[in-house]
């Protein structure tokens, strides 16, 4: 037997992992390949089945069935009722708000993510390690706190509240507050994808471009950005999924004004609390759909990122 017992002829090694590890990612393939049960290095077949079975059962019960249930519930009163629930003005307003919030927050995080990653990986400065830690902060802070922070800053009783009221600027219980909370929660996604890659790539490509006479902007758009484009897209994708799905932080700052400051997740909750289960699941199914699209795109992108 060769030292790569599960090597699949013609199966390209994308990750560079030994094929034994790679094969484990597709359980059915492992089982088909391991016919010689006499191999002492392999676990006994029943043990294999048990382990794979437990993993699949767990995922089915806790992930697949609930997700399918969302669609089942959403369509429980037929397609017409489903469409009607989504076409309800409040639902449409929630969808619109969600799209606007996601577009603004993803845009902001795209820019600031690149700036932060650039600063961290291409320059040396005092407080750099602090900045790296701060980038990760939103991951370790509960979203509710993230929302509360902005209420304390900009709310009517907050530090800047009186001034904002005097100038008739609405942040809390309005779009700016929702965007702020979403940006806070989703900040790490872009920066965290870029930092390791840009650190690994170093600054030589940029130096080469500059030495060839390219301007800073040209260097950025022709060299730096193409070098990280797949990782950047991957970060944007995750950032977008979280921005659309964020509940906790947005819930605190939104004020739940129906048709005005309700995003999709908030709208789902309101409908559910009002016992409109079918309508709640109908809107939820859109979020679930988004999740699945994200997942497919993520799998496709991961291969590209690995290549980089």
């Amino acid at each position, binding site marked *: 037997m060769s030292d790569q017992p599960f090597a699949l002829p013609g199966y390209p090694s994308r990750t560079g992992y030994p094929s034994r590890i790679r094969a484990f990612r597709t359980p059915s393939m492992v089982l088909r390949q391991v016919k010689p049960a006499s191999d002492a290095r392999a676990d006994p077949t029943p043990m294999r089945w048990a382990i794979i079975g437990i993993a699949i059962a767990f995922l089915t019960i806790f992930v697949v069935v609930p997700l399918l249930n969302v669609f089942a519930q959403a369509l429980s009163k037929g397609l017409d009722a489903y469409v009607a629930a989504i076409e309800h003005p409040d639902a449409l307003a929630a969808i619109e708000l969600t799209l606007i919030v996601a577009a603004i927050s993803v845009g902001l995080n795209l820019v600031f993510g690149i700036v932060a990653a650039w600063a961290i990986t291409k320059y040396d400065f005092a407080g750099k390690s602090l900045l790296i830690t701060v980038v990760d902060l939103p991951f370790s802070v509960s979203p509710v706190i993230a929302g509360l922070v902005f209420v304390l800053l900009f709310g009517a009783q907050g530090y800047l509240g009186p001034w904002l009221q005097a100038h008739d600027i609405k942040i809390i219980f309005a779009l700016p507050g929702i965007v702020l909370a979403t940006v806070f929660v989703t900040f790490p996604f872009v920066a965290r994808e870029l930092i390791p890659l840009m650190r690994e790539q170093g600054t*030589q490509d940029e130096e080469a471009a500059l*030495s*060839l006479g*390219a*301007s800073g902007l040209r260097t950025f758009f*022709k060299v730096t950005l193409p070098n990280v484009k797949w990782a950047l897209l991957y970060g944007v994708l995750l950032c977008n999924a979280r921005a659309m799905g964020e509940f906790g932080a947005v819930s605190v700052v939104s004020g739940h004004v129906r048709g005005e400051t309700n995003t999709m997740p908030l709208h789902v909750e309101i409908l559910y609390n009002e016992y409109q289960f079918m309508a709640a699941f109908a809107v939820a199914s859109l979020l679930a759909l988004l999740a699945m699209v994200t997942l497919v795109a993520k799998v496709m992108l991961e291969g590209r990122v690995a290549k980089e």
Partner: protein
Amino acid sequence: MKIALHEVTKRFGAFAALDNVDLDIHSGELLALLGPSGSGKTTLLRIIAGLDWPDQGEVRFDGEDALSRSVGERNVGFVFQNYALFRHMTVFENVAFGLRARPRRLRPSEAEIRARVKQLLELVQLGPLGKRLPAQLSGGQRQRIALARALAIEPRILLLDEPFGALDAKVRKELRRWLRQLHEEIHVTSVFVTHDQEEALELADRVVVLAKGRVQQIGTPAEVYEQPQSAFVHHFIGESLSVPVTIAAGGVHFAGRKLDLDPHGLSDGGASLFIRPYEVTVVPESGSDLLNGIVKRVHGFGPARRLEIALREGEREHFIEVSAPRQEAIGIGQHVGLRPRAYRLFASTADQAQGG
């Protein structure tokens, strides 16, 4: 183009990467910056390029102040150690990058760019590979593309950082010869950094030996090899063996005995005697005015036979390796005398005690 560096100093924290470096680079020459790692050679190259700035000193290109210009304005071709080819661009686009980056009024037309890139790819003998991506090339091919890319901007000076460092031995030798030919063809002032003395001696018109941020010696390969001006250079370039000696009363003493050597005008005190292993005569018996030792090992055979000899100085033993005489049958344990045919003496300094 002529380049002049004057009292260039660069510190990284407390560490002086370059310490008062003076250097004149002649127009059209191929100059090697040779030194061990940490000697400051790459920092010096980056300062010439404009990728690093000195803390003090002047850099002049044909008399003009270069420090007031950015890397892009200096018009230098820089070849990075790992080539830094743009991985998402084809070979053609890599080479064309510098031409396309020019401001509109100086930018050649698309047809001119195509012709120029084609010409450069032929110059580096990679004409048919224009459509490939860098990842699809071998190390030697990437190196030549990096060179073509640097040459595309018609640089006033070509700077190469360890140009052969990432290549295997065979490719390295071929490419070295090829680069020498190329330099003779295009004659652009070129500076390359290397830690490999063989590379520097074979390729360069002149060699700058650097150590600890200071210039140790500047000269032609023959000069630095045959007339090393310091113990460091003697040790670093070519094979050397060194013996600690004492200069006293107009004579050279080892282990309390006066040797048949002239002190070359060195004043009294500790010194190092440097000899090339092939410039010493081995006689099969001790002598009162010779370096005396005992053969500890015999390596190899035929003309390549070498002896490892222990020289005794009181309690201490110094091991040196010399070429064995052809005729004499010399075995392990035999007492021998060594008479240098050519040698150099350097007064001991603190520097040398550290650096060996």
